[in-house]
């Protein structure tokens, strides 16, 4: 997991003045974001960085997030790292940061701002492609599938859906239904139940995040339908589902690495180094083969 840490820096960090990194995420109230936080905290320990972690209680709290960035800036950190819920809304604060000469790192979700120090995260469209391709590989040309979107305006998830659509189209697979389930399990189940009414003949499902995928799987099981469901994020419950065979696969992002790399990058910036505009934290397709290993690692990382 952490193979891509440059060992060189590790011993130096300590003897300089402590670097202060303020990190504002979309929310801290979900496992995905706890993993980002965990990565950041580990890196902070390693490089003796003062880390301020903030995030509203839901990804929909856009202005709350903006307020948190402001509140973070009042503490004059050396670097600001942000995962913007609505990318454009963050830019005015980024400008403020720039005036204060505080470099800005984007995490998990990119924003249209040229002065960013770097964006560290998944190439969401590719992630969607990856999921779509795998789903296609399990189906025949002409089969019908359904897509589950995230909450409206969640650009990261929208990109994944786009990617998946392309991959599926390329494989000659038909998308007959596309509904958002707002990353909510219960809603995912309802939506899938209803989709099954109008399209009893679907052969597969791709979901932009695992919560919805797991809900969809309940609806399928209830209808005694055993068709492949591919999700995104590989959260523990999803990985368990992959192990017990009820879920086909999940495109894992690497939230832990995002957090870790972000702090690492912050330390470099503090030293005046410059960074590439985009650092791909990479993805990993989780299937039956590698699921157990992933689960063990997740449990280890999340259990503290």
């Amino acid at each position: 997991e952490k193979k891509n840490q440059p060992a060189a820096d590790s011993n130096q960090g300590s003897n300089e003045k402590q670097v202060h990194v303020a990190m504002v995420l979309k929310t801290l109230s979900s496992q995905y974001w706890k993993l980002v936080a965990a990565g950041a905290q580990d890196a902070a320990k390693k490089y003796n960085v003062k880390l301020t972690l903030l995030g509203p209680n839901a990804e929909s709290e856009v202005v709350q997030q903006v307020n948190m960035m402001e509140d973070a800036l009042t503490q004059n950190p050396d670097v600001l790292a942000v995962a913007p819920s609505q990318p454009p809304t963050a830019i005015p604060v980024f400008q403020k940061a720039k005036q204060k000469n505080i470099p800005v790192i984007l995490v998990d979700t990119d924003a249209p701002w040229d002065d960013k120090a770097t964006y560290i995260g998944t190439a969401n469209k590719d992630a969607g492609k990856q999921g779509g391709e795998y789903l296609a590989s399990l189906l025949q040309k002409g089969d019908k599938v359904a897509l589950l979107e995230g909450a409206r305006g969640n650009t990261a998830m929208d990109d994944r859906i786009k990617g998946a659509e392309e991959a599926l189209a390329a494989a000659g697979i038909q998308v007959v239904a596309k509904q958002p389930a707002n990353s909510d399990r219960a809603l995912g189940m309802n939506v899938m139940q209803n989709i099954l009414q109008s399209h009893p003949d679907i052969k597969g499902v791709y979901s932009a995040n695992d919560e919805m995928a797991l809900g969809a799987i309940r609806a399928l099981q209830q209808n005694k339908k055993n068709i492949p469901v591919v999700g995104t994020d590989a959260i523990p419950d999803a990985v368990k589902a992959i192990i017990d065979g009820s879920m086909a696969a999940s495109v894992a992002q690497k939230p832990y690495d995002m957090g870790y790399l972000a702090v690492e990058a912050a330390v470099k910036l503090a030293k005046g180094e410059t960074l590439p505009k985009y650092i791909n934290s990479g993805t990993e397709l989780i299937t039956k083969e590698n699921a157990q290993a992933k689960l063990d690692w997740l449990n280890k990382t999340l259990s503290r």
Partner: protein
Amino acid sequence: MNCATETVPAKNKSLFSKETLYNLGALLGLVLLCIVLSILSPKFLTLDNLMNIAGQASINAIIAVGMFLAILTAGIDLSVGSILALSTMVMGVLNVNLGLNPILSILACLTLGALLGLTNGILLTRLNLPHPFISTLGTMNMARGLALVITGAAPVSGFPESIQFLGAAFAGPIPVSFILVAVLYTGMYFFLNRTTIGRYIYAVGGNPEASRLSGIDVKKILNLVYTISGFTAALAGLVLVGRVNSAYPLAGLGYELDAIAAVIIGGASFFGGIGTIGGTLIGAILIAVLRNGLNLLNVSADWQTFVIGAVIIAAVYVDILRQRAAKKKALS
């Protein structure tokens, strides 16, 4: 006098239609909606789909029972969604993580829900907070916070059959959750209309001061009302856990609005004392039917939001028109 006596039967009727037949208005709206949908989508009237609706309506329907009581006493309970989340999360931790026996875990879940409800009641009756809106807004946040804290936002899953039963099992084609709804509402109907406590709840809603001066312990009644509301929220939580075989800390987010909508569409008044439990059930079903129908018609999510708003207003308006008509009839 004779002009009065002649029309007496008419009066009783018009009177009833105002009081007990309130729900008929919502019913009318529901029927209209169903007709439209069954014309637009052949899938709508299939047994299979109707059972889906039954299942999907049940969670909101169960929460709406408590919400109805709160609104009947001129109050409100914003904390239902959070209570649902916290009590199911606790059950999850007890049962899945700590291996507590399922039945005990279920009891813990329901008891916790009731206690959280009682807390709302006490904040209202002992601290005399001005309106339950404020106290339940407070507990709404507190309970949500705790639900997130206890597992650090991690969902809990892998519940035994026994716990999933209410939400996942079927009796023939009928979801057990809907049978639960039927039982719950029948019981409530009886409780509200045939028991002293039920009457007292209506009385307190209609005029708290007069109730107090008639010897009713208003505070006790209000505590009871909010305790029930917390209990039904937890009960709905059990169903949700059964449906998705997991408890998660953000469960029930925003459910209060759906429940309130069900109660109001069902003809209850925010000023207390008026409304019927039957109307609330119809309101809950109407909302579920609407969501289901729009999905069947594959209406884009954005337009769905719009249509739901429009139908909520339409459904209530139909009721107004019906009442006007009833009045006219009573007069002529």
